[in-house]
């Protein structure tokens, strides 16, 4: 026992050193080039549910772009283009959609893709437990006309249908795999997409392999596609710099300016279809009076908010639709200049000249906090004392749904059809109408606009709705955030899409 400690230390030390050197030595040789056949993409969150029926998270959709094909897709300009459906017809009354399907397409498990598969999927999405139910609500029947033709019957004309089919509601899962074990499907998705699911390790990575039989010629270009989960933006960035990932989906905003002249990667900065802002609870005594809400709107300087909290990476906003939408109206979305006097006047008219105090609930994201702090300062100028209450997003959402708040920062990632940014938010009694807002004129317009097929007519109506919303101010629009990607210069073939998704099918590593 006398010398045991000495022995142990003297044995261990060189051992550890040797190990360290060994691993460092190997590292030098291997880490630089990994063959060029694997594309690594960092995601900011672990996708919770890889089943399009169950999915509710934004990040799920990123992985879906590789595993699943949709009936129709969006091109980089936001047009609806063929995907699994080669062409389609819509009846003049807008109540019948006929899709002609691509032939010779197979799911990753070998099951054939045909009209029966479409029927199976759409009916599955219409079930009670499905989160896609709302998107396909208007569809009353899915009919198989022949093996490669399928017809959707609607009870009312519903213009957003095609746009919905470019997203989760149009994604085709293998009927065989779903029937075999539906509970397992969300961790073992099987689609027809360019890459097939291989394995996932929760919180770590999702590995996909090339679909050799993909219907699009010469695609996909890589052998393996790995989504690496990196919850911290700065961690993702160092991985991009060191070449461990080729693309990151949430570039840290305060690094955007510094990274403009990087040699090894590019920053892609595109407006998203979503909106960020403040939900005002119109059922609450403090915000019942429209003039109070208008006063808050007037007192804010959106440019300052964007430049302070987002390092200037974002677009100051005043409406629900961003540039990425065909119904966008520049005049309506332009952030009004701060008007302190006007705001004070409105408050005085509402009998609150002395000001008042309220509490805003916000999530723990540092950006939300900063946004709130800037707003807090700006509202002080009209004697409004805003308290900030932080909570995790789950609690925030729960209270939002229950109406247990005065004001809150809840935002929306956005949908490609304007209906998706407006109907479920501002129609009376809808699922995201946290404001408890109700305006019969708006309700009527929302209903009418989704029933029309003429885009120009719809556009006019949505603009009318947005004008009314800027008058009523149940929701204070602050800005549209940008989708900011970091993309290694080794990657070719990535084209940004207005829906903010990373389509991997044509991506290639040099």
């Amino acid at each position: 026992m006398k010398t045991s400690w000495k022995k142990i230390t003297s044995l261990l030390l060189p051992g550890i050193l040797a190990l360290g050197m060994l691993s460092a030595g190997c590292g030098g040789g291997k880490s630089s080039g990994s063959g060029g056949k694997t594309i690594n993409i960092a995601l900011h969150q672990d996708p919770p549910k890889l089943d399009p029926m169950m999915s509710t998270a934004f990040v799920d959709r990123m992985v879906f772009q590789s595993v699943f094909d949709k009936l129709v897709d969006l091109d980089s300009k936001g047009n609806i283009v063929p995907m699994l459906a080669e062409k389609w017809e819509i009846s003049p009354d807008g109540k019948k959609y006929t899709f002609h399907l691509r032939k010779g397409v197979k799911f990753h498990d070998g099951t054939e893709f045909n009209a029966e598969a479409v029927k199976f999927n759409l009916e599955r999405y219409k079930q009670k437990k499905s989160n896609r139910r709302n998107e396909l609500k208007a569809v009353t029947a899915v009919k198989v006309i022949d093996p490669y033709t399928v017809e959707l019957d609607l009870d009312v004309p519903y213009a957003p249908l095609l746009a919905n089919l470019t997203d989760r509601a149009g994604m085709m899962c293998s009927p065989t795999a779903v029937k075999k074990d539906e509970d397992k499907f969300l961790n073992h998705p099987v689609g027809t997409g360019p890459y097939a699911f291989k394995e996932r390790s929760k919180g770590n990575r999702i590995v996909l392999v090339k679909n050799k039989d993909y219907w699009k010629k010469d695609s996909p270009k890589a052998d393996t596609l790995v989504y690496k989960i990196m919850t911290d933006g700065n961690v993702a960035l160092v991985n991009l710099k060191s070449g461990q990932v080729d693309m990151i989906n949430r570039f840290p905003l305060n690094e955007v300016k510094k990274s403009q002249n990087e040699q090894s990667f590019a920053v892609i900065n595109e407006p998203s279809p979503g909106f960020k802002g403040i939900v005002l609870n119109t059922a609450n005594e403090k915000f019942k009076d429209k003039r109070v809400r208008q006063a808050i709107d007037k007192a804010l300087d959106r440019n300052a908010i964007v430049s302070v909290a987002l390092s200037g990476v974002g677009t100051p906003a005043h409406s629900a639709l961003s540039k990425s939408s065909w119904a966008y109206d520049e005049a309506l979305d332009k952030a009004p200049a701060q008007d302190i006097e006007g705001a004070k006047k409105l408050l005085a008219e509402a009998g609150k000249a002395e000001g008042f105090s309220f509490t805003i609930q916000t999530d723990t994201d540092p950006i939300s906090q900063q946004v709130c702090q800037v707003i807090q300062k700006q509202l002080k100028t009209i004697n409004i004392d805003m308290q900030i209450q932080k909570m995790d997003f789950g609690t925030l959402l729960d209270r939002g749904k229950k109406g247990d708040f005065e004001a809150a920062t809840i935002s929306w990632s956005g949908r490609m059809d304007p209906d998706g940014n407006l109907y479920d938010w501002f129609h009376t009694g809808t699922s995201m109408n946290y404001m408890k807002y109700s305006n019969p004129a708006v309700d009527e317009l929302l209903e009418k606009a989704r029933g029309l097929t003429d885009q120009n007519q719809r556009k006019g109506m949505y603009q009318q709705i947005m004008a009314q919303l800027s008058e009523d101010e149940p929701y204070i629009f602050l800005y549209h955030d940008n989708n900011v990607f970091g993309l290694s210069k080794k990657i070719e073939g990535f084209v940004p899409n207005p829906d903010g998704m990373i389509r991997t099918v044509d991506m290639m590593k040099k």
Partner: protein
Amino acid sequence: MKIIIKRIAAAIPVLFIVSIMVFLMLQLLPGDPATVILGQEATPEAVEAMREQLGLNQPLLIQYLHWLGNVLQGNLGQSLVDGTSVNDLIAERLPATLELAFGSFLVALLIALPCGILSAARPNTVIDHFCTFISLIGMSIPHFWLGMMCIILFAVELGILPASGYVPFFDDPVENLKTIILPVVATGFRESAVLTRMVRSSMLEVMQSDYIRTAKAKGLGERTILFGHALKNAMIPVITTSGIMLAGLLGGLVITETIFNIPGYGKLIIDSVFNRDFITVQSAILVSAVFVVVVNIAVDILYALVDPRIRLGKEGA
């Protein structure tokens, strides 16, 4: 042996109380699991249906007993979020954290023992000041910052180690060591700081005791005195600190795991809290409570091994 069994028996009520406390505390959390799982677009009917499906509408006592009954049969339950077995989730996450914890612990020992002993052997010399300086740095530098700096140096600038991630040892031992070395050093360095101070002060105290003076008077060599006589006596408080440290590491590596993007146990718990995945949180915390208990029993046994004066029997009485 009897005593060990006694200690284990004493641990059972502790674990039982932990299970009740965790269960009740989670109930106090605002935010309903069904709302969190279904997200923004969910209608109230869908939320209600989900609550029913998850069994959240049952009385608390039933929910608790149901969970406990399963746990006693070795079934830690199913994740509320996606129905995965919690046993699998834990089995998947635990190896990374165990490796991290023991690795950091080893690094801490490798720094603390030589530094502490040297400091104590040569108090108030350059060596002592140097070691004190090192441990001061260890205590004052936030380890997430140190981790970041390591990543920038070794992964971005030199490119010899991966910036982050984790590869299981049995998949690829070399890759495993490459991914684990930075986090282990960054965390171990911080942990070594307190331990160094502990070793030093404990050694100093022993060095001033009568029997060491006798040994010196007898003319024994310094090495024999230090390693043969002083060290073992000085180890008792060090073992206590190490035990607490190791137990802490097993549950509290969240920051390291986040910086180095390691899918570990700490992250599992934190993510599950945010997802309101009650079952996973309850079971994972219970498992880490078991670890703490095991480490404590191990520490008790080590006491006896290092210092025969401490009889396990006496302690029991």
